[in-house]
């Protein structure tokens, strides 16, 4: 069964460093998403992406964040200068019909 994959599973970085989180959505899906879950809190929408551009973004998704689909398979989330409060689980999802399929998540730890 096709699935969404994410790498790395855990990323540790120093405050102020740039990180890139990678996702491979399911191949025939057209809508892609990033969500964030701070430990112990609810899952929050960050951004949606369709037809090679951002279709919607939340207020969390400020200028420090960017997304890209550099080729036909990868979907990346870049955080330019990480802050302590960026420590969270980041989930990628892709959409088929009415169901979003989530990846296993990347745990980002900012020290």
């Amino acid at each position, binding site marked *: 069964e096709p699935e969404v994959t994410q790498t790395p599973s855990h990323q540790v970085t120093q405050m102020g460093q740039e990180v890139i989180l990678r996702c491979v959505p399911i191949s025939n899906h057209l809508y892609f998403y990033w969500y964030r879950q701070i430990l112990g809190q609810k899952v929050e929408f960050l951004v949606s992406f369709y037809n090679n551009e951002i279709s*919607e973004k939340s207020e969390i998704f400020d200028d420090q964040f960017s997304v890209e689909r550099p080729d036909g398979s990868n979907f990346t989330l870049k955080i330019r200068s990480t802050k302590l409060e960026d420590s969270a689980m980041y989930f990628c999802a892709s959409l088929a019909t*009415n*169901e*979003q399929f989530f990846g296993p998540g990347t745990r980002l730890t900012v020290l």
Partner: protein
Amino acid sequence: AQTVTQSQPEMSVQEAETVTLSCTYDTSESDYYLFWYKQPPSRQMILVIRQEAYKQQNATENRFSVNFQKAAKSFSLKISDSQLGDAAMYFCAYRSPNDYKLSFGAGTTVTVRA
């Protein structure tokens, strides 16, 4: 964004018993989608069940069923014959028909006692 409220931070259930998780939401839309996701300790998000608002019949998936009360804006999840593997955080989520992003509730942690 729509507000999704899960008022039970934690629920405990005896193995083989039934537990019901509550969820309410706030919307002015007449058509939308509701979901329950399970998040085990691995933190993977797993879809449990989905309900389309235009369908009056409550969705059922094996031991999981919902009680969808559209007028009350309520969407509870019933887990029957609870198993140890059901222990997880459960999130209720709302999706508007006009966009595809999900709005999640705060989650309910379910503990299953052997």
